[in-house]
């Protein structure tokens, strides 16, 4: 009996602790959505701390249409899609080469990619920006190329280790049937590493979607800005329009949160993949 009571008390303490921390994570977002549905007048009255009584979509209309957030949003979708596509293509090709094919300097090159992951380059964006400036690539192409590189080493590593664990029977069969090397990579290799590709896609998509530094340096033109840069610029321009800023934040955060709730496992694996390599 005594033992039982002690156990229950411990559980209550643990849950109180966990739940209060969880509440601190959720509350700011509930507040954000709540404020975004109010008028500026209502916000000034209660600071958004009371639940919204009648829903007002005007903030979203202003943010998306008049402030052209639809454009920032589509830009972000575009950069993310193209970059992830190019990373998947380039890194799976390289990973297949490192895992299955023989060529001189193979081990040296692979360890070069690995070492790159370990060395922090806090000012890496400086020479990259200078280089793109010299090459007149301060545009979408330059940005996608530079972002492709950021996810490359980790993606190659993940896919290469996954390829290494796969049996070669299927590829041998394809070769005997007269399939070319590129054909084997595309038709046999890629479908087999699909689980690892999911991690690569999520990891890199989040990376590009959330990237700010390089994008803010490169895109000074409003029509090219991705969401993060547009958001920063917008909040500096309209400091006092709280309800509008909260609507903009909801537009930027909600799709990611919903996507995350749909595919938690892949998100967690994608984001911790980088850490667990070290």
């Amino acid at each position: 009996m005594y033992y039982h009571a002690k156990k229950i008390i411990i559980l209550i303490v643990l849950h109180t602790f966990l739940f209060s921390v969880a509440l601190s994570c959720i509350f700011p977002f509930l507040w954000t959505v709540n404020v975004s549905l109010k008028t500026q007048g209502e916000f000034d009255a209660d600071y958004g701390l009371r639940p919204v009584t009648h829903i007002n979509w005007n903030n979203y209309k202003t943010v998306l249409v008049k402030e052209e957030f639809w454009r920032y949003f589509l830009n972000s979708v575009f950069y993310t899609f193209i970059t992830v596509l190019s990373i998947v293509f380039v890194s799976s090709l390289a990973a297949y080469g490192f895992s299955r094919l023989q060529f001189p300097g193979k081990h040296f090159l692979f360890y070069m990619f690995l070492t790159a992951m370990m060395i922090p380059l806090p000012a890496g964006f400086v020479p990259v920006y200078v280089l793109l400036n010299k090459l007149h690539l301060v545009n979408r192409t330059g940005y996608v190329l530079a972002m492709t590189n950021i996810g490359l080493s980790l993606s190659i590593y993940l896919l290469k280790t996954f390829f290494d664990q796969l049996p070669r029977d299927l590829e041998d069969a394809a070769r005997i049937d007269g399939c070319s090397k590129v054909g084997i990579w595309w038709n046999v290799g890629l479908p087999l590493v699909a689980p690892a590709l999911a991690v690569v896609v999520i990891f890199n998509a989040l990376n590009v979607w959330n990237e700010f530094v390089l994008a803010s340096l490169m895109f000074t033109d409003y029509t090219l800005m991705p969401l993060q840069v547009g958001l920063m610029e917008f909040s500096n321009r309209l400091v006092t329009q709280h309800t509008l800023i909260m609507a903009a934040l909801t537009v930027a955060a909600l799709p990611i949160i919903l996507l995350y709730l749909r595919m938690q496992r892949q998100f967690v694996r994608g984001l911790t993949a980088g850490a667990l390599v070290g």
Partner: protein
Amino acid sequence: MKLSLAEKTTNFSFVLPALFIFSMFWIYPFFYTFILSFQEYDMISPPAFVGLGNFSEVFGDPSWWSALYNGGFITFWALTFQNILAFMLALAVDKVIRMRKFYRVVFFILPILSEVIIGLLMKQLLISNPPGRDVFNEFLKLVGLGPLAHEWLGIDRARLVTALVHCWKGFGWAFVILLAGLQSIPEQLYEAARIDGANAWQQFRKITLPILMPVITLVIVLTILGTMQAFAMILALTGGTAGLTVVPVMKIYNHLRGNQAGLACAEGLMLGIILVAISFTMFFISKKIREKYGVLPR
């Protein structure tokens, strides 16, 4: 097996696209950082060689040292408050059975969101506009904690509040890694220890901690690397607060914006060397600890 030249070329072409992008955006920038740090370059006129001029300017710049101090201050809070909180949460979630999934999902929301979103969101909550009237203070008054109200992003608190917001964004990530580590410890070890009469603290001290040592080291190193290079969240939250929350990467970024690429590279090089030195030292210390306590590295 001897390969023909044609076959070698075909095989090599698989890694060629990766190698091309990597050379252009990693190898070249890596060495170019060293070259640029000896030059004065405004990206319009041709670069001029200034020897160690940039480095002596960086060494003599008190605002660079204060930026390093601010970064170190935030890192200190991330190492202590953030990681201890994450560890406690991981231990607690490992113990409870109900709602475990809920906690895991909720704690990981913050790490997946961008630094800009978190920074702007917390700014909206904390900024006083007009003075003394901000959302967080109104909330405190609402729940009866009115006397705690402060100007959170003012001169006297901005640095600490920035550090705490950084911890708030980052703890979920450390939590997930530590929890994965905890759950990989086989239950039999604890059972055996209990049979031998070990209490909860002894089990933690003699089983959990030694086995988790590599994971803890990893979290510590990644926290240091990540926090010393944090930037976008702080830019969104405070924008620097009169130098009090200026962090190293913010200095580098501003120098590049001000067309002082050489200076930015010198600063980046210095920070990079510090970070490499710290992470090597940490892994070395961890290895020594593991050897001393006889826990074999995995």
